[in-house]
């Protein structure tokens, strides 16, 4: 019963300080919202990877994958089965139907493991009968069929002229997927007698011969639960998002911390009175705890709702980047799981408990009868600064060690977090030094007081300033990184998109006709045939890309490093060019020899050059087109780049469209491809920018609440000055200047820190996450703009408390002397 009364007394404080309650709730809400929003996006993406991977091979099924090649001969199926391996063959590829490119999976239902994927199995005779009937069936999810405007029993024809078995709606099937019997899939995908992978039935069978004895090195075993390619590739992207979410959460906690600190400060007399009335310290703390948890839960639920909104708003962009970068299909519709709510609330409650821990400990130790002593701040602040400096040094040393010895992306983020945290902790120390210097150089009592008072303010403002520093530094860092990337990317794109028109004709016979037609046109300077093939090197999927031997590439194709006469070597098949990220992943260096598995035997070549291949999740090796086609006969001479006389591009495009009926997917001019690449690029960083802005906003709120707190608690310091004759207006202006000075110093310190962060992102995180390194570019205009924004934010945050002070009734200032706490 008493607890309830204590609670009422405590809550009455919030009734009188609604603004304060609002800041506390806003702090908690924004922390929870950003964190849980990011988590919701990550969860959604991961769920869809799992689902995509679980379609006939992936996460839950052990598999045999080709060792070198992309596919293996079908004869291995019988060999494996007869050696006791309970395997089921799968062939996977993409087909183009109309304007769409759809994933097609060929399965063998009799041997398919029961849990491998939603397909007709032995347990449902009727379904199986239809699927295996001579006419066959193509399974498709009803939703996908509806999206694509297809209906049941429709017979689709691929662009290369293959007819699919009639469509059959399969409710459990994944979206954007077609499933047919493997026999049909081999015909449709033009991969006769080829298998992409074997799924291993987890059901216990009899004994089996060792894999190496059965298949040599043609196949490798991948255990169930291994990470899928998609999970591996996207891990860094999600780690980036998580890091941002966590940063926002921490900044939000700064707000909570200062709001709780303020409430504690103001309720100190009330708490003391309660204790004097006989409420035990432990009881008081438990009621305070209950109050805190209650507030955290309210704010948490609201924060989760906001998080949901943020996630829904960001998801389309994230989904677009994931599709553009990794080809991962993530549905744009957010599906939230219950554990997300629970985790979000738990995070919110735990966060507020951590933020309030200091205040609660002070309540436990509250001296009952001792009246408020004048705060011996100097002594205490010095100890506090020394402690903080030591801690900062330790953290910075740890970050340095992580940078020196770490290899993973996680350690890269540890370096980043350590640098940021260390710098933040060091901030009050540096500010203190700067203020001391200012004090030493100034004359006159008011100026001396102002400098000294600023130093005294440090301990109260430092958390908010640290939040501002972090937010600004991250903003500068991310902005610089994105800017550097953007600049490099555009320059690279100019070189990379050297041809004027790009043309893909899936049917090689038709392609030959078009090539002949192109070659006799006077307005076309060059027809540059390209080709591609997929191989596996060291277990990695690698794209082989063929380029014609032409001055276009010799002059324009951007190479990071190259040997002399590299293009001659490429023409003769002696040399190949390796993409930067593949080189990094496999440890290939200039001058190394690589072994490329081809259908006609191994192709050994020297690495003649390394080139940037931004945005490509797959490793790539560039070779000469003719050399590629000699070795991969099935690859087909189906891609062309055209150099066109200036001004003739629209004409050539139009004639290609009208003469050969080529659509917008087969044919693109350089400008379109460039625009599309930039669009994908911009979307990729759209999320980053939004989160960045959010974080800065949260830091602004943190500064605002801290100043509110200080304004209240600093009256005892200001009252004597007023009594000595300094006007309220002058006091307010002085206060404003002091705060702006602190904010400015913080912002100035944030700039080098931010550039450090950018360096860390570019040199460490990017290299580990994506495998490419960029030159660091600094954009002074951007930095100045950010500085202004930060100062404006600080001004807005300072203005309200200062106006309050300027208008404060003298009686309030007088009261300070009357009832000094």
């Amino acid at each position: 019963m008493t607890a309830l009364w204590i609670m009422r007394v405590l809550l009455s404080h919030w009734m009188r300080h609604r603004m304060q309650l609002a800041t506390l709730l806003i702090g908690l809400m924004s922390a929870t919202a950003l964190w849980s929003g990011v988590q919701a996006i990550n969860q959604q993406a991961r769920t869809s990877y799992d689902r995509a991977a679980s379609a006939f091979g992936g996460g839950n099924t052990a598999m045999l994958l080709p060792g070198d090649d992309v596919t293996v001969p079908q004869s291995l199926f019988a060999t494996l089965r007869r050696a006791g391996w309970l395997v089921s063959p799968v062939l996977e590829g993409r087909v183009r139907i109309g304007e769409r490119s759809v994933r097609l999976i060929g399965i063998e239902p009799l041997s398919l493991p029961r849990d491998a994927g939603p397909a007709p199995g032995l347990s449902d005779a009727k379904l199986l009968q239809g699927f295996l009937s001579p006419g066959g069936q193509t399974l498709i999810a009803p939703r996908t069929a509806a999206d694509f405007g297809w209906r049941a029993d429709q017979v689709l024809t691929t662009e290369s002229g293959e007819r699919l078995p009639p469509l059959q709606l399969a409710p459990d099937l994944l979206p954007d997927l077609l499933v047919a019997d493997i026999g049909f899939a081999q015909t449709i995908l033009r991969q006769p007698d080829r298998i992409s992978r074997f799924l291993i039935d987890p059901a216990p069978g009899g004994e089996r011969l060792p894999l190496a004895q059965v298949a040599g090195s043609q196949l490798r075993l991948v255990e169930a639960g291994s990470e899928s390619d998609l999970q591996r590739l996207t891990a860094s992207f999600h780690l980036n998002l998580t890091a941002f979410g966590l940063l926002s959460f921490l900044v939000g906690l700064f707000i909570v911390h200062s709001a709780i600190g303020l409430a504690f400060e103001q309720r100190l007399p009330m708490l003391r009175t309660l204790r004097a009335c006989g409420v035990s310290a432990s009881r008081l703390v438990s009621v305070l705890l209950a109050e805190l948890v209650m507030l955290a839960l309210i704010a948490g639920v609201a924060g989760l709702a906001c998080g949901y909104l943020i996630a829904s708003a960001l998801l389309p962009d994230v989904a677009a980047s994931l599709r553009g970068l990794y080809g991962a299909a993530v549905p744009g519709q957010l599906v939230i799981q219950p554990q997300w709510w629970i985790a979000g609330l738990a995070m919110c409650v735990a966060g507020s408990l951590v933020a309030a821990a200091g205040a609660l400990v002070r309540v436990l130790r509250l001296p009952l009868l001792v009246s408020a002593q004048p705060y011996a701040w100097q002594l205490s602040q010095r100890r506090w600064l020394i402690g903080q400096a030591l801690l900062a040094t330790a953290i910075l040393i740890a970050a340095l060690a992580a940078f020196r010895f770490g290899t993973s992306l996680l350690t890269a983020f540890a370096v980043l977090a350590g640098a940021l945290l260390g710098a933040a902790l060091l901030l009050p120390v540096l500010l203190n030094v700067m203020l001391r210097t200012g004090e030493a150089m100034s004359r006159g009592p008011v100026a001396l007081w102002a400098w000294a008072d600023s130093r005294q303010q440090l301990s109260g403002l430092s958390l908010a300033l640290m939040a501002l520093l972090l937010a600004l530094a991250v903003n500068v860092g991310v902005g610089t990184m994105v800017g550097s990337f953007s600049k490099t990317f555009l320059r690279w794109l100019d070189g990379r998109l050297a041809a004027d028109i790009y043309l893909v004709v899936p049917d090689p016979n038709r392609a030959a006709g078009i090539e002949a037609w192109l070659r006799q046109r006077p307005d076309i300077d060059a027809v540059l045939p390209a080709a591609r093939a997929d191989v596996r090197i060291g277990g990695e999927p690698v794209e082989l890309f063929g380029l014609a031997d032409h001055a276009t590439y010799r002059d324009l194709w951007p190479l990071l490093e190259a040997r002399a006469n590299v293009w001659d070597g490429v023409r003769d098949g002696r040399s190949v060019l390796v993409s930067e990220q593949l080189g990094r992943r496999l440890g290939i260096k200039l001058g190394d020899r690589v072994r490329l598995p081809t259908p006609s035997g191994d192709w050994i070549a020297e690495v003649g050059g390394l080139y940037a291949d931004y945005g490509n999740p797959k490793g790539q090796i560039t070779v000469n087109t003719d050399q590629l086609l000699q070795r991969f006969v099935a690859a087909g001479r189906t891609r062309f780049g055209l150099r066109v006389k200036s001004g003739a591009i629209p004409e050539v495009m139009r004639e290609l469209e009208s003469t050969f009926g080529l659509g917008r997917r087969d044919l693109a001019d350089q400008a379109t491809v460039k625009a599309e690449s930039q669009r994908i690029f911009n979307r990729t960083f759209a999320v980053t920018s939004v989160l960045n802005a959010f974080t800065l906003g949260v830091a602004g709120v943190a500064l605002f609440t801290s100043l509110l707190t200080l304004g209240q608690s600093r009256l005892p310091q200001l009252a004597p000055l007023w009594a000595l004759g300094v006007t309220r207006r002058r006091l307010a202006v002085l206060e404003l200047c002091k705060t702006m000075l602190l904010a400015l110093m913080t912002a100035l310190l944030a700039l080098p820190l931010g550039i450090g962060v950018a360096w860390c992102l570019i040199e460490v995180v990017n290299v580990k996450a994506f495998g490419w390194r960029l030159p660091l570019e600094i954009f002074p205009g951007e930095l100045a703009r950010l500085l202004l924004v930060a100062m404006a934010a600080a001004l807005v945050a300072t203005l309200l408390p200062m106006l309050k002070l300027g208008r404060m009734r003298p009686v309030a200032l007088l009261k300070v002397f009357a009832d000094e706490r």
Partner: protein
Amino acid sequence: MSARIAAIAFTVLAAILAGPVPSRGQGFSGLGADPGGFAPVVRGRALIFPADHGAHPEHRIEWWYLTANLKDASGNSYGVQWTLFRQAAMPGAQGEGWSTQQLWMGHAALTSATTHRFAEKFARGGVGQAGVETKPFSAFIDNWQMKALSPDPSALAPTELTASGKDFAYRLRLDSDRGVVLQGDAGYSVKSERGQASYYYSQPYLSVTGTIVLDGKTIEVTGQGWIDREWSSQPLASDQTGWDWFSLHLESGEKVMLFRLRHADGKDFYAGNWIGTDGKSELIAASAIAMTPLGTTQVAGRPIPTAWRIAIPSRGLSVESQPLNPQSWMDTRFQYWEGPVTVKGTQNGIGYLEMTGY
């Protein structure tokens, strides 16, 4: 082993694996059974070896079937079953590779007095996962195999036989000093009064040696085996509800094959062959066969007549049959009872009993 034609193939393969197959009983309105586009079974067609050891894709259904009664050194009894079924889902051209309409199913079992272990396999033809080769003879599905060791392509023995499941395995060698035996009327085995029939021959004179693996223990065994070969195109009559089938090795060295096809109206169809030690096979008149259940055992939730009285007065045979393990239930997709039996009476012997439709 005739009745297997109808039920196993047409309930399991037709319903589960196959494409458009006439429903049971379709084509029975006339005199004979309509093979539905498949090759008909004709009386008087001579069986030719080794060709007829191989597959007959123009016929709808076919199997290679081995049962063996075995004993270990301490006198414990075991039974082994190994079966490969083939079915053509469609008549006519059978296609190549994945488009083949040939479907295969394997059953293997190992029975002791206390346990009955079994496994099954399914496969599509055309890709080398299952099939039958002649010259030399080899029938296989995955790593289960019945493989002739002799260079003589027409001989079914000596043969190596292997199969394994999650909780059992066996590797046996089958030897014989005599040739195959034609069942029914020179290989033409009638299945109903309305004309359904199959081609049917056996190799009942097999001596078996080898090892079985049960619960991780490898056990040396010896005994007698029996191979059945049968193929047909015609479905079972619609009113035939199941069958009871015996293959017996009598102590005299004579062999007996008997079956009863149960009819819904109680007018069951009986048939059998008496095979002398010289390999001479004679039809037993339906009127001369008496098969009477002696009592039932509760198996898989249903009563099944596991003990029988068998009488063929014209041959002076009157015996009672007891199962080695009354729970010899094949809990496969098509379920049936199949296990080793012992007969005692005017002659003693061992053999196999199969019962379906219960």
